């Protein structure tokens, strides 16, 4: 008998994983992976945070630690710490009992549970995301039941900055109750964040149009190295009186990528709705995976719950974000040294893991094929993939690509 599933068509490969596969299979000695968004140390190696190693060892030595089911909404002290970390522990909304969190499967799981809640219970169907945005936003919301995907202008290719007028114009036309996905900090993939003044204006238009803010916070601490500074936008919206949700991920800032540790923070204007919301979230989770995985959340909860360990962790984020900033400087310096055509200031103006280099698809292809440097077709690079050992090599290759395939003659972006 042929398969029942013969009708199923081959799905398109997900670019970033496809890229990773090609990189892994490449035998070239000096290959460089500037694709997937994970932190790498100065030797290009994954870095398990010392505080995580320490905590895991402690947990491994603890005979009393069990593997029982967590509550459906996860470890409560984990969520409480996450909400405090995001909103500031003295935030009035916390003391007023109108902010709470539920443990989720990292950032993606947070987005999915939040989107399911908004679609199934508030019946929201429109959603907006920045152009460009993290490639998974669209489908997460569509698979949660949202039927009207729309974009708001964000990246201005020519200026290599935010197309702020375009952004405001697009949001000004958004229908009431549209859910707007906002990157809390370290915008993925561009690395360009709105200024505080711009955030205020975004809040103005969202207030006026009655739009619903859905923050995606995957890099708190990773952008500037300061947890509070990186949460400024979310806290501003809260101060302004918005009800909102925020998806938080501990994949990057705790390096716990594969343990799927995340939190969905929800801020309401009335604490009376907390209980009904929690009960509905319980049903959403129960129907998806029953209860979240314990290990990673315990690590995070134990660290955030202890002042000394929390401080130690702050040191790690500072170290990681500093190395990223250093490499941004280094890349730009090398490009300038080589006399590479173009202005490279955006590399250091951008923030977080990624940089939207402005390289064209053709130039990117050249980098991959000729120089074994792996990056996305969009020109996005993960700065963490750079280190003192390869930054010169990468700069030379970029220079080569630009010289060989000048942007002016390149229409390959149209094919993106």
């Amino acid at each position, binding site marked *: *008998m*042929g398969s*029942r*599933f*013969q*009708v*199923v*068509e*081959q*799905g398109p490969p*997900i670019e970033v*994983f496809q890229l990773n596969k090609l990189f892994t299979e490449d035998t070239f000695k000096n290959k460089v992976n500037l694709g997937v968004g*994970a932190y790498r140390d100065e030797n290009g190696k*994954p870095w*398990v945070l010392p505080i995580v190693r320490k905590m*895991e*060892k402690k947990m*491994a030595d603890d005979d009393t630690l*069990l*593997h*029982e*089911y967590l509550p459906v909404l996860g470890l409560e002290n984990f969520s409480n710490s996450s909400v405090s970390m995001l909103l500031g522990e003295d935030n009035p909304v916390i003391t007023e009992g109108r902010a709470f969190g539920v443990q989720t*499967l*990292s950032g*993606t*799981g947070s987005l999915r549970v939040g989107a399911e809640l908004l679609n199934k219970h*508030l*019946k929201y169907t429109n959603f907006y995301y920045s152009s460009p945005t993290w490639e*998974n936003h669209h489908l997460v919301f*569509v*698979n949660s039941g949202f039927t009207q995907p729309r974009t708001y202008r964000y990246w201005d290719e020519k200026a290599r900055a935010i197309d702020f007028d375009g952004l405001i114009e697009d949001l000004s036309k958004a229908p009431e109750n549209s859910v707007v996905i906002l990157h809390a900090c370290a915008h993925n993939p561009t690395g360009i964040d709105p200024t505080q003044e711009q955030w205020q204006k975004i809040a103005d238009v*969202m*207030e006026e149009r*009655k739009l*619903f803010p859905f923050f995606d916070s995957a890099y708190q601490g990773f952008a500037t190295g300061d947890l509070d500074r990186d949460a400024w936008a979310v806290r501003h919206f809260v101060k*302004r*009186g*918005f*009800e909102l949700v925020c998806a938080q991920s501990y994949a990057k800032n705790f390096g716990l*990528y*594969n*343990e*799927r540790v995340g939190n969905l923070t929800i801020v*309401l*204007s009335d604490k009376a*709705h907390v209980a*009904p*919301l929690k*009960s*509905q979230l*319980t*049903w959403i989770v*129960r*129907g*998806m*995976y029953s*209860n979240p*995985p*314990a290990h*990673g959340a315990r690590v995070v909860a134990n660290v955030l719950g202890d002042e000394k360990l929390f401080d130690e962790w702050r040191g790690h984020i500072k170290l990681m974000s500093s190395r990223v900033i250093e490499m941004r400087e280094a890349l730009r310096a090398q490009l300038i040294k080589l006399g590479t055509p173009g202005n490279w200031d955006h590399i250091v103006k951008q923030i977080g893991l990624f940089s939207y280099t402005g390289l064209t698809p053709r130039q990117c292809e050249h980098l991959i094929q000729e120089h074994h440097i792996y990056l996305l077709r969009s020109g996005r690079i993960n700065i963490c993939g750079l280190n003192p050992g390869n930054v010169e090599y990468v700069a030379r290759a970029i220079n080569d690509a630009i010289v060989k395939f000048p942007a002016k003659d390149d229409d390959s972006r149209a094919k993106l």
Partner: protein
Amino acid sequence: MIMAQALKKLTAQALKNNYAEAVTTGIVSRASSTWWSNVPMGPPDVILGITEAFKRDTDPKKVNLGVGAYRDDQGKPFILPSVVKAEEIISKKGLNHEYAPIGGESAYTDAVAKLAFGEDSPILKSKSNCTVQTLSGTGALRLGLEFVSKHYAKNKEIWLSTPTWGNHPQICNTLNLPHKKYRYFDAKTNGFDLKGALEDISKIPEGSIILLHACAHNPTGVDPRPEEWKQLSEVIKQRKLLPFIDMAYQGFATGSVDNDAFAVRQFADDGHQFILAQSFAKNMGLYGERAGALTLLCGDAESAAKIMSQMKIMIRTMYSNPPLYGARLVTEILTNPQLKQQWLSDVKLMADRIITMRQRLRAGIEGAGNKLPWQHVTDQIGMFCFTGLKPDQVERLTKEFHIYLTKDGRISVAGISSNNVDYVAEAMHKVTS
């Protein structure tokens, strides 16, 4: 519509309430609409509610026969020796926490597929299975059913046993997948209603999906015998149904992982291209670490590859990639020969304790001179026992004796120990006399 009206009402109310505050604090809360007031309180989950009630009870004799987690003879959670060893080994390895592949690590998916289908299964040799790591059993069911909703070209209707695990229909409802029932449990005998099942199944519309429990049926503990499985297989084939097998207790039922996989392997041999959900929550005691797997049998390697590509897209939009901690332990145990042996005896130990408690419970009730038949207590298998108690008798057990169980009369035998078996037997006798 309703939302707009509600919002309007609430906005007016909010403005009224916030005005004074706005004046005194200087913060004019312009975004004052309450978005959430239409959200009703959801009904509490029955099973989880029992544990909550048990926790609140202060009676020293209280017994929790609600949630299905294994307990040792002291009534304590049990960390399997094989798991302890595996944790030591993994800890020493000093592994990193880089993203897992979307479908989980291949060492894991290979090992769990072998466990289910047998080391020498032709399915695995032909690579015609699409196996992915999932968030335990629930995650496998949700992912499998969502995949069906999206991609299945035949009759999108699922048939569930009467009764079945409470979360089965809930997952279907979440996906708007219509679900119907086929007869399963015979309340007269507290056993399997083979005749009723075959009758109902023979009338299921062709191409529908049928959900089966591989072993240790939850909640009844009633499993078909091997000859009965063969009959089920045949009628399911005749009706061209897609079997979805939920295997949450491999090893836990009889104490033998191979015996417990009988139905899975029979169906594979019979050529069914079924869907399989596996859980390591109970048989490895890894409850909270969420280790499970979903397999789709696709007929050939090419189809399996195509299906895998779509499966990955679906996983990506739910949680991107799976948590590794629990899966790494499973892999270590299944691929390390010594650990595997240890695990097989750990799981036998758990199954044997359950079987012993069943024997003692039955003996206790019969020994008290109870007139009703209690053979089903030892005939049934796995963690659960469908006692046959009626709701009012269940209520008495809880109110008078502080014994907690679900309204349908299901008890978790794992909650019974040497310390309480006599008490429970006595109580069950009293409420049924």
